[in-house]
């Protein structure tokens, strides 16, 4: 195989697709990027068996063929001088040569046969405007769990309905739900648990492709996301997602209106001395909310903001980072915080009900 390509384009594509390559796998070929050149064009692809990414490469094919190059080829190409880069491989040889300007590299390569077959790219799906997809995914992905012992929670529930898309994620300490309207949803509802990492990569793919829409195909076991000419396929997570609607209380003892920017600024200040797992203490008294943090190591800080609170004083503790993430993710200038009691979850909502963030409290000692 022999192909010639613009340096920046090749470096960009190798790096983008290489994100799916696995550095930890026991199958060495998975740490590589596959380049396939035939009469239809050139495709670069990588996979760690969970997630695969592929994208076309604009190149002049002088001799068709298939090669695998290590992920670090992206770094090599990026550091070459601007201009054309030639990639060449003679069938049966264990090296791929990369030349550009006066630099020349011979990279040890795996046989293309060791590379796993990429998942079939089939079916048409639901097309979402890129901004709808991004703003929805962005607000929930962070709430997914990173703990592999409960696989379902490492995913995001994606539900497509005729007139809306809903994404839900929870790590069991907080739960984020966002719903956005759709004009061309599926006639029958579809849903799947998509690994959070895949959703994050799909967001990146939109940016990479400069796409203004993304097509989502959900099948029984896999999900495909097409953004422009970049295609991401992911294994779906098998299991039952928590019935989140059952977890969200319908009524709150106090439903407080807050200035989102102000609360965020206060949290930003006091979070500086809060360590991981330190609760922020939210004391609600007549007309006032006082947020305080006590750090054994650094000392303490507190700040009050006016709030329309009346009734019996109440104190509730939250993880400061979780709370801040929820306030950040809500939209609009005003924020509503619903609370029931110090041991019941609190609910954050933005201007409207499209985003809801349920947060479990931390038991306070006093």
């Amino acid at each position, binding site marked *: 195989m022999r192909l010639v390509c613009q340096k920046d384009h090749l470096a960009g594509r190798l790096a983008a697709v290489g994100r799916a390559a696995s550095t930890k796998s026991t199958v060495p070929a998975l740490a590589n990027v596959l380049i396939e050149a035939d009469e239809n064009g050139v495709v670069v692809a990588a996979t760690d068996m969970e997630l695969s990414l592929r994208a076309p490469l604009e190149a002049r094919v002088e001799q068709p063929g298939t090669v695998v190059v290590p992920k670090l080829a992206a770094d090599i190409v990026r550091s070459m001088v601007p201009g054309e880069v030639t990639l060449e491989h003679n069938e049966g040889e264990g090296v791929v040569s990369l030349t550009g300007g006066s630099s020349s590299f011979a990279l040890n390569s795996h046989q293309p046969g060791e590379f796993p077959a990429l998942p079939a790219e089939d079916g048409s799906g639901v097309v979402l405007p890129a901004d709808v997809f991004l703003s929805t995914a962005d607000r929930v992905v962070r709430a997914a769990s990173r703990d592999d012992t*409960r696989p379902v929670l490492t995913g995001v529930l994606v539900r497509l309905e005729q007139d809306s898309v809903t994404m839900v994620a929870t790590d069991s300490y907080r739960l984020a739900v966002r719903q956005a309207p759709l004009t061309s949803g599926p006639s029958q509802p579809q849903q799947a648990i998509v690994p959070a990492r895949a959703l994050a990569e799909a967001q990146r793919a939109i940016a990479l492709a400069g796409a203004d829409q993304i097509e989502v195909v959900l099948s029984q076991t896999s999900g495909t996301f097409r953004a422009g000419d970049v295609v991401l396929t992911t294994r779906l997570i098998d299991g039952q997602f928590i019935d989140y609607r059952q*977890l969200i209380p319908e009524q709150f003892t106090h439903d407080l209106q807050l200035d989102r920017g102000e609360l965020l600024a206060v949290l930003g200040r006091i979070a500086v001395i809060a360590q991981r797992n330190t609760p922020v203490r939210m004391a609600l008294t007549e007309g006032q909310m006082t947020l305080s943090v006590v750090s054994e190591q650094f000392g303490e800080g507190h700040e009050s903001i006016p709030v329309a609170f009346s009734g019996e004083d109440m104190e509730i503790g939250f993880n400061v980072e979780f709370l801040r993430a929820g306030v950040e993710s809500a939209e609009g200038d005003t924020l509503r915080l619903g609370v029931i009691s110090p041991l019941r979850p609190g609910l954050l909502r933005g201007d409207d009900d499209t985003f809801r963030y349920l947060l479990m409290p931390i038991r306070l000692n006093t």
Partner: protein
Amino acid sequence: MPDARPRVIAHLDCDAFFATVELLRRPELRGLPVIVAGNGPRSVVTTASYEARAFGVGSAMPAATALRLCPHAVVIPPDHAAYSEASRRVWARVGTHLDRLQRMGIDESYADLTGTPRPVAVLRAAVADVLEATGVQLSVGLGPSRLVAKCCSDVGKPAAFTAMGREEAARRFASAGVRRLPGIGPRSAERLAAMGIHRIGELQAADPDDLARRFGERWGRALHALGWFHDDSPVVTDPGPAKSVSSEVTFDEDITDPAAMEETLGHLSERLEGSVHRGGRRGRTVAIKVRLSDWTTVTRARTLPGPVDDAATIARVARTLLREYAPPLPVRLLGVRLAGFVDEAARAPAPGLPDPAGQMSMPADHPGNMSAM
């Protein structure tokens, strides 16, 4: 005042615990025979998945033997930090259902349910919730004592749920070997065998006076009571954060090679690191325990200028202590202990709380009905 209510004691045991934790992390190995074992020449199987057990592989078997029995088994090196973390999650979860809990090592506990209404339903709910929340299957034995409960949880594993009274246990286990009884180790078993006692039924039939002559008054009578499944030992609930954390290993054969001993200290230190990390605890005192072939047991400790929690430092101090002691005889047991924890009260998770520092989590017993829509 002693509690006059009939005692209800459960023994909860995680099925193939290490293997389960590995399978949760590597679902692609599900259904394959998996063995968790180190890769040293003397390494032993710490757990085997039920698929591997079907080939006759068992815990504590040398890894080499296991691989002869089951040559296509997938061997995974143990990751004690991950097991400690999974263990913490399992028992914290159990703690939300059962409050009088006594931890016995990483994968088993006793629970006292005396006076609890509908103990079976409570236990079944706990088992289902732990499985849902952590992926770990518990086996449960239920009886009037720790002894009966412990023997029951082994019956019908995996996912056992066995309850028996004392008399029934004495009858059902009569044909089992005496080693089945906790407290009877290889040495006692050997001495019983010398008296012609191999099975629990034979122990029951033995003359208590003979046993007392042979084993001493107290242990002899205790053995006889054990055979009849008499046990009134209490479930000692969690006394709060431990003052020290230790990890030790008894060798299959006594060892003399200093390099092997130092390597073992390294492994023990890593295991220790796993269990201190979860509470964010750091200790200032590192100690070693050495038991020689003649059962002399020696400990040596050193207090450091500042608290430590990393395996490398603990291992370095432990090795220095071992070199200074220079065991005069072959060694049958080595242990490493970390003590002198700083800011213990502030950092250690309170027992029974679902997560560190009181963070509450959502109930996981909502299986959801969304896919039905």
